[in-house]
């Protein structure tokens, strides 16, 4: 459950502004939180925490800037706080640990099975949403965040870089690498299901 904190003191204008700007983003935040936390209850806790923080900080949001990016920044920080305090993830590892678990990047950042794919769109379409979510959730956290912002929510690289507090180049590299990791996982599942021939794969 969310931290009690100080109750928001909003004027009528602030409340109306919060309602107009932030409330319509609730579904986007909740979807991101669900793909991030692997858990419905934790996702709701996280978004609730985010919304309370956003409500308190609504005066800091500048009109004409990207409300989704602003809220995503708050969501990410709330998530880091939660992971560090192990409040939402009793068995969670730290952000630093997840980053350390990343394999060394290959020079070309290609997937292990990249030379074996044909008709990639058709093969990917055979996977249901739940399976794609599972594959996403198996990725290291910073890679998952990048794909959630850039590919799922279609945010530009610069907005994602601001939210994740890394250079734009890192976002591009992570996105490319994340896609390769995701399709490797899905390809392995496709092999297990017999959707692609293992013999063909091994000789391709």
């Amino acid at each position, binding site marked *: 459950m969310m931290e009690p904190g100080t109750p*928001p003191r909003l004027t009528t204008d602030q409340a109306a502004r919060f309602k107009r700007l932030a409330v319509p983003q609730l*579904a986007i935040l909740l979807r991101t939180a669900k793909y991030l936390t692997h858990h419905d209850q934790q996702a709701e806790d996280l*978004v*609730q925490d985010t919304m309370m923080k956003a409500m308190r900080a609504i005066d800091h949001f500048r009109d004409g800037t990207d409300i989704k990016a602003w809220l995503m920044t708050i969501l990410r920080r709330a998530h880091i706080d939660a992971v560090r305090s192990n409040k939402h993830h009793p068995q969670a590892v730290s952000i630093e640990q997840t980053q350390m678990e990343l394999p060394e990047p290959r020079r070309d950042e290609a997937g292990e099975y990249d030379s074996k794919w*044909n008709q990639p769109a058709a093969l990917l379409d055979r996977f249901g949403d739940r399976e*794609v979510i599972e594959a996403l959730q198996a990725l290291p956290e910073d890679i998952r965040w990048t794909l959630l912002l850039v*590919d799922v929510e279609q945010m530009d690289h610069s907005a994602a870089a601001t939210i994740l507090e890394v250079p734009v180049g890192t976002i591009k590299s992570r996105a490319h690498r994340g896609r390769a990791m995701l399709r490797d996982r899905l390809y392995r599942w496709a092999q297990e299901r017999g959707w692609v021939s293992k013999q063909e794969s091994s000789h391709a």
Partner: protein
Amino acid sequence: MRDRATQTELDDAVRERLARMATVPVDTSNLERRLRAAMADNGSEHSRWRLPRAWRSLTAVAAAILIVVTVGLVLMNLGNTPAMAAPMDLARLHAEAIKSDSMMTVVTSVEQANRVLSGQWSDLPQLPTPTSSQLHACCIHDFMDSKVACLILRDGQTPLTMVVGRAREFRPAEGRTVERGGRKFTLHEVNGLRMAMTHQGDRFVCLMGEVSADRLLEIAEGLGF
């Protein structure tokens, strides 16, 4: 054998598959309830801490009143937010409407449907006119604690449902948005049932059926508002 996909094709395919994850329906109703409850809890907790001191100071009393009023205003504002029309609930409504087709009033024109339904719902929104599908039947349905008009259309042999509600009561669920004929439609799919939702003036409209997304948009674009 076909040529292997290039790196760019692979990246594009993954990117497109992930983009579709943004159309997976998300139900925010529980979170909205929790948010309202949390704010109410915070308000009362704050009052418990501040009120004893408030007796000693007029300004503290004013501050306490301000907090209560503010929390109330925010709760009212959140309460007035239109509910998200959940695709799963709409899919159930479609299934029920198709199943109970024979229990609905048979109509052949929107004017006739407007006359029939306004007798059952005095606040009936003006129904859009389908131009590229045939109107078959109509009824008033309870949906998420509100009323909606439910119209059965036929596209050839395929039944479609058009749900019309008040824009102040419903909003389209977040999803992929496309623009057709100057109007924005939000697209969803639940088990092969495709949906196109839109807000037009004071109306929330959802058109759904087991047709291709292109065909559904073509029919939606042809609606006369």
